[in-house]
């Protein structure tokens, strides 16, 4: 509102007139600046001005006007600047520009424009200072003084110093003087053309008659002279108008200045009186010649009197304005102002009246005519809405009518009801607008609602019922806001009490809105349909708040499908979507499935109706989530394709979708052969994910990194793209992605973005970055990544294990990459070998450095496990030569050995030694594995015996499995080496177990026995896993028996062991006929056939032969 003070300058002066001949460009630029000012595009004005300042083709005269234009643009910018300090800075800058313009001593219209603009600007600065002084914590006195200073400067800039008898105006320094100078010039020109009127009054009688006949008529003007005269008179009127405008502005500045002084002070009264005198003079002097200006001045005169507390006099001054009959926006606005201030005066004088009859007479000035005016509905007002003026007016009128009703005698019941009805109507209007006076109006409406009988002739139109409902709805919303504030401030008990109260208001609002919806069920006029739809929107929201999700979804869905363009339908559709999401998440399985289907249908409708709008984007998100949850990669691809290209939310959407799609592609690649999609399909998903990631990342705004939830989406997407590039060996892209200033995950780490400091995203980011930096031998960065990884693991009890798990995961990724290189179609090409070599070299160098300089347990474990993964990959043969792999394994064993030795190192910290102690079992298990892989059986067994010597570790299934496997492998190796005796012992122990206190190994048979109960106890994943291990153990039992049979050459022992092996299979099959499924059946039968072959069958029959043998009678 306060910005409107500058409007005058924009009206009269923004079209800065040229004082020189203009080029096409200058004429066009000036007109463009005028148009941009009118369109309120000050930013574009500044573009034009900035270019014009450096454009040599523009004349110096034109460029001299630019500071004025710039000031105008800066003032325009200040209008939308929310920050008070920045707004003040813009206005100060504008003032400097105006001063620069005035330094060139402009004349005529340019001078008038500049001084007026500056005066207006200073008024604005003063108003800003006053506004600031009202804020808590501000120095009100200092700011008040500053405001007074601004207003004084404004008056000095506007108010003329030229007296009527002063002939010459040497230097123009104010707006008024500039206008007067122009006006005098025009007056002189008119006088030069127009003949002077005769100075003498005609004499009376016949002589005078004769004289009149003989007097010369004024000389006739030529057409050119008449044209010039017309033009000059037009200008004269313009400047007269400007003179009055300037004086009104001076009066306004003085009025504002009076308010800046302490209330009731002498200075305030004196300044207000000065302002009042200006308005009074204009109102009285120009009532006939400049009626509109005089009418406005009359209003300001009355308003000033009201401000001085002279309410009776003010009401008298304003009285003529109350009868303004015009319907033009200007007339309606002026009448509204006058009625508003009059109501203020009447209410004050009525309240001060000594007897009720006087008070009643005063309030009765709000007569039928004025009552009709104040009851004008908002849609019939010029702006089609209630502005602050009208809200104040309607509320004051409601108050006045209510007070008048209270003063009527009991027999005047009907008249009182009419007054109360109108008062309530006005109060509801103000309450529904939910801006100024809303709370007071709501209270008044509520009180009048109780006072009025149901049949009091109240307006029961659909719109009125909906308005009533809105009052209840707004009351609930306000309560809800209070609850949130209390919760946020931690006032739990008060918040709970407020929540209970809010729930009651909500239920009352639901009842009121339901009545409104029912009342409008048959509505057919557009206004009623709109009203009832707005009630439906409220109802959907209230139902959601009441957790009546089905009803909320139904109402929102109805609005969306049947009234998609109604105001609030989009909001209601969002409520429906949210309700269905709640139902899908919370309802029992059957209902949830229906809710999911309805949710999908609702989302589909929303994307159809509002494809590129925010509501559509929400719905797309729901559809994408459904596809992701269903692991529907093809569905994700189709969502990416279908999402509107011009939606501002596309980048985030496709990034999320593409990240999920890549995950699906990875899962598919790892899935079992029977359920694995074609490679071409997976490749297609990867290609789609890659393209979408590239598009999405490229479309991100270049200004600043994303924040909040979208930062997580963007960083995850960038990480996914980086991983893809890493897999492709595209190091440049990895670097570009990881270190991109906007979305780069590593850049986010470097700037301390909380999204990548801890949690899964941080862990993946850092392991990927670490791998990349190692591969590209950026060892400093690799070191920083390692340190960040350690921080990400935290400091709690689990941190070491977590860190090890992260290193292990990274090692596995590295191994998978090497396997992929080693098994791909290009596996044996020099390019692939070279790539693998570079990867390995990078890792070797880094691991070596870490192992030497970083003795921390976690670092050493990482070194050891990474060497282990490099050396033990099963598919890396093509890219990691066997000698190299063995070397890695040995380096791994050495690293693990060094770690164990640190336990006894007196120089190691106690905490470190404790740390290593906690890892010792897993380290020894790893060392055992390495020795087994390297065929160093005794060393492996030594580690295993250490593990099996402890009763707690004996119960570890992993340890027992590895122990049985080691014994079997060692036995078979001894057999291959020709050491049958040792082989027999080891194989027997592998099957039956080994007991040499304190060492206890269960062997395959013991493992199977211990697994049997769990394996057949249920159908869950755990049982399935146990079943798998059970049958595997049973296979090993039979296999070791076969191996032992083969040791003995021929003879009874051999036959006995072959029979035992066969019986082991037969018994297993008898007890568990399906043998754990097709895969195991195949393995069992294959082993059985091997046994049968050893038993002499040239063409072993497998299970069929076994069945036939068991069916035939026993041999005599």
């Amino acid at each position, binding site marked *: *509102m*306060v910005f*409107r*003070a500058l*409007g*005058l300058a*924009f*009206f*009269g002066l923004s079209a800065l007139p040229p004082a020189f*001949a*203009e*080029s*096409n*460009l200058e*004429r*066009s*630029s000036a*007109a*463009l600046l005028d*148009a941009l000012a009118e*369109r309120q595009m000050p930013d*574009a004005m500044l*573009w*034009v001005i900035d*270019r014009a300042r450096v454009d040599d*083709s523009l004349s110096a005269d034109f460029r001299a006007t630019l500071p004025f234009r710039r000031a105008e643009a800066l003032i325009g910018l200040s209008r939308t600047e929310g920050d008070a300090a920045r707004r003040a800075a813009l206005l100060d800058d504008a003032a400097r520009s105006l001063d620069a313009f005035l330094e060139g001593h402009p004349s005529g219209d340019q001078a008038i424009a500049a001084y007026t603009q500056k005066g207006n600007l200073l*008024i604005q600065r003063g108003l800003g200072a006053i506004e600031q002084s009202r804020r808590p914590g501000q120095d009100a006195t200092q700011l008040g003084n500053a405001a007074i200073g601004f207003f004084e400067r404004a008056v000095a800039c506007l108010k003329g110093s030229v007296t009527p008898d002063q002939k010459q105006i040497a230097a123009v320094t104010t707006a008024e003087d500039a206008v007067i100078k122009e006006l005098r010039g025009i007056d002189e020109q008119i006088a030069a053309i127009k003949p002077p009127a005769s100075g003498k009054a005609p004499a009376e009688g016949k002589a005078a008659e004769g004289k009149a006949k003989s007097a010369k008529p004024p000389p006739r003007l030529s057409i050119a002279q008449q044209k010039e005269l*017309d033009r000059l*008179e*037009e200008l004269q*009127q*313009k400047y007269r*108008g400007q003179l*009055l*405008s300037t004086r*009104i502005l001076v009066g*306004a500045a003085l009025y*504002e200045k009076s308010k800046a002084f302490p209330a009731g002070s002498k200075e305030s009264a004196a300044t207000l009186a000065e302002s009042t005198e200006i308005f009074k003079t204009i109102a009285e002097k120009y009532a006939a010649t*400049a009626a*509109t*200006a005089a009418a*406005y001045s009359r209003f*300001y005169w009355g*308003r000033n009197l*009201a*401000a001085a507390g002279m309410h009776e006099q003010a009401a008298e001054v304003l009285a003529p304005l109350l009868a303004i009959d015009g319907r033009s926006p*200007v007339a309606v*606005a*002026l009448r509204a*102002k006058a009625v508003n*201030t009059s109501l*203020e005066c009447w209410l004050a004088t009525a309240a001060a009246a000594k007897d009720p009859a006087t008070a009643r007479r005063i309030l009765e000035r709000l007569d039928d005519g004025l009552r009709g005016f104040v009851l004008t509905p908002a849609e019939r007002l010029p702006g089609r809405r209630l502005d602050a*003026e009208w809200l*104040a007016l309607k509320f004051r009128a409601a108050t006045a009518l209510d007070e008048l009703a209270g003063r009527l005698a009991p027999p005047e019941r009907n008249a009182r009801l009419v007054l109360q009805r109108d008062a309530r109507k006005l109060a509801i209007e103000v309450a529904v607008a939910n801006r100024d*006076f809303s*709370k007071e109006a709501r209270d008044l409406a509520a009180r009048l609602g109780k006072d009025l009988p149901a049949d009091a002739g109240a307006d029961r139109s659909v719109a009125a019922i909906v308005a009533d409902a809105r009052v209840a709805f707004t009351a609930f919303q306000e309560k809800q806001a209070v609850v949130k504030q209390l919760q946020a401030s931690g006032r739990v008990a008060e918040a709970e009490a407020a929540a209970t109260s809010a729930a009651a208001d909500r239920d009352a609002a639901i009842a009121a809105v339901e009545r409104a919806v029912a009342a409008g069920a048959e509505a057919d006029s557009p206004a009623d349909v709109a009203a009832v739809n707005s009630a439906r929107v409220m109802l959907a929201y209230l139902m959601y708040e009441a957790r009546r999700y089905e009803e909320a979804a139904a109402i929102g869905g109805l609005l969306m499908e049947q009234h998609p363009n109604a105001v609030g339908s989009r909001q209601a559709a969002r409520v429906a979507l949210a309700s269905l999401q709640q139902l899908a998440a919370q309802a029992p399985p059957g209902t949830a499935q229906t809710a999911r289907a309805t949710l999908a249908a609702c989302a589909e409708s929303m994307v159809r109706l*509002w*494809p590129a709008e925010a509501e559509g984007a929400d719905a797309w998100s729901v559809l994408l989530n459904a596809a992701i949850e269903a692991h529907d990669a093809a569905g994700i691809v189709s969502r990416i394709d279908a999402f509107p290209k*011009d939606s501002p939310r596309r980048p985030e959407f496709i990034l999320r979708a593409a990240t999920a799609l890549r995950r699906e592609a990875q899962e598919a690649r790892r899935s079992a052969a029977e359920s694995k999609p074609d490679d071409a399909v997976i490749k297609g998903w990867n290609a789609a994910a890659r393209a979408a990631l590239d598009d999405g990342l490229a479309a991100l*705004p270049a200004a600043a990194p994303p924040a909040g939830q979208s930062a997580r989406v963007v960083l995850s997407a960038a990480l996914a793209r980086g991983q893809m590039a890493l897999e492709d060996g595209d190091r440049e892209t990895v670097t570009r992605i990881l270190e991109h200033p906007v979305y780069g995950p590593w850049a986010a780490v470097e700037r301390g973005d909380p999204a990548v400091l801890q949690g899964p995203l941080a862990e993946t980011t850092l392991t990927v970055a670490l791998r990349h930096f190692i591969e590209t031998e950026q060892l400093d960065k690799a070191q920083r990544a390692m340190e960040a990884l350690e921080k990400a693991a935290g400091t709690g009890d689990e941190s070491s294990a977590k860190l090890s798990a992260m290193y292990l995961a990274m090692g596995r990724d590295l191994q998978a990459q090497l396997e992929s290189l080693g098994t791909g179609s290009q596996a044996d090409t020099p390019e692939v070998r070279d790539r693998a070599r570079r990867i390995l070299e990078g890792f070797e160098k880094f691991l070596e450095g870490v192992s030497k300089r970083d003795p921390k347990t976690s670092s050493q474990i990482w070194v050891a496990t990474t060497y282990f993964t490099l050396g033990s990959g099963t598919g890396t043969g093509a890219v990691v030569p066997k000698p190299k792999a063995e070397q890695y394994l040995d380096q791994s064993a050495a690293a693990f050995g060094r770690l164990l030795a640190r336990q006894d190192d007196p120089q190691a910290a106690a905490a470190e030694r404790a740390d290593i102690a906690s890892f010792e079992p897993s380290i020894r298990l790893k060392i055992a594995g390495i020795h087994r892989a390297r065929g160093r059986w005794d060393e492996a067994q030594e580690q295993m015996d250490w593990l099996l010597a402890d009763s707690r570790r004996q119960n570890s299934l992993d340890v027992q499995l590895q122990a049985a496997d080691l014994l079997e492998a060692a036995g078979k190796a001894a057999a291959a080496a020709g050491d049958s005796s040792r082989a027999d012992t080891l194989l027997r122990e592998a099957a039956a177990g080994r007991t040499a206190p304190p060492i206890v190994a269960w062997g395959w048979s013991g493992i199977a026995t211990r697994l049997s109960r769990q394996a057949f106890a249920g159908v869950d994943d755990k049982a399935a896993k146990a079943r798998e291990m059970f049958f595997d153990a049973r296979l090993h039992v039979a296999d070791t028996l076969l191996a032992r049979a083969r040791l003995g050459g021929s003879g009874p022992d051999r036959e006995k062991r072959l029979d035992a092996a066969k019986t082991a299979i037969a018994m297993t099959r008898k007890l568990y006929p399906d043998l754990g499924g097709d895969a195991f059946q195949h393995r069992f039968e294959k082993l059985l056939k091997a046994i049968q072959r050893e038993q002499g069958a040239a063409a072993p029959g497998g299970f069929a032969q076994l069945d036939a043998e068991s069916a035939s009678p026993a041999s005599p």
Partner: protein
Amino acid sequence: MPFHAIPLLAVAIVGVAVATAFQPAAAEEPAQDRVRLLDGSEIRGEITDMSPNSLTLETKDGSSSVSIEAVREVRFGGEPDGLRDARTLVLRRDGTAALAELETIDADELREADAEIRDDVSFVKAAATALQALATGTDLARGQKLAADFVAAHPRSVHLYAMQELLGDLLAAQGRPVDAARAYDALAGGPPAVAVRAATRKADLQFREGRFAEAQRGYEAAAKAAAGIKGKAGLRSVRQADLGRARCLISQERAADAVAAVSAILAGDDADAATLGGVFNVLGAAQRALPGHEQDALIAFLTVDLVHNEVAEDHAEALFNLVELWEQVNFPERAREARQALETTYPQSPWTKRLRPAKAS
């Protein structure tokens, strides 16, 4: 909330009101024929003779002959308001609006009107139909027939060359450059500025076919020929040829040269206001072709949108560019406003059709 007064709200309104209160009443015009010239002046009197090349008026100062190349518009005394407005719309090349305006003319009034007025209605109707066909790309053959019929029926009309040019445009739009060139050739028999126009329009044909170097030579030749013609008509011809040349430069990836060429036009003080829309559009197009000059391009197209928006085709072109540029510099609300202005003001314009499909609401 405390009561408070609203002190300065009305100040601006006062300014408006005061100014309005002092507006003088407009004087009534006598019903004379009026010939408006390209230099902005006007001759009033009675038209006594008209031909494709000139017209003669009896004014209070005697007889006066005016070459057709200097004439912007001819208004007949006593002509229906609808005809005057429709003709103005034709001058702005808004055929659809002109046809709608013609519908407002009372048939009885027209029946009783002079033959010149009835002929002028025929011209405006044919020209508006042709312009509408050109703007929408539909009914080109119908437009062509009306234009050809007018030319055949009114061989001595002051509008003969204008209609001949429209006929060429319609043929060109139908992919018939040879016939179009033949139609333009008829302009060669007119006064010098009209004859130069023939050369310019034929260069336009070459431009349309993508023969930019040849077109450029054509424009340069036309500009040279026009340089010798005196008065506003000559200057206008030079400017049109210069503008064509600038377009060729843009198409030949010499956008910076095009900017320089257009800037030279703008540095003068002689351009016809109606042609400035086209000039700023070419400037905007050149700046769009230069990387990093989006703001300059925006200023150029804003100048057309907010200042030189008289000619419908120019305005539509500017609005289209503004939609794209505002989106490019991330002002979606301004882009939406420009789109709305284009779609509602010029629903049939090819520029509107080039926009992406409107979003559902």
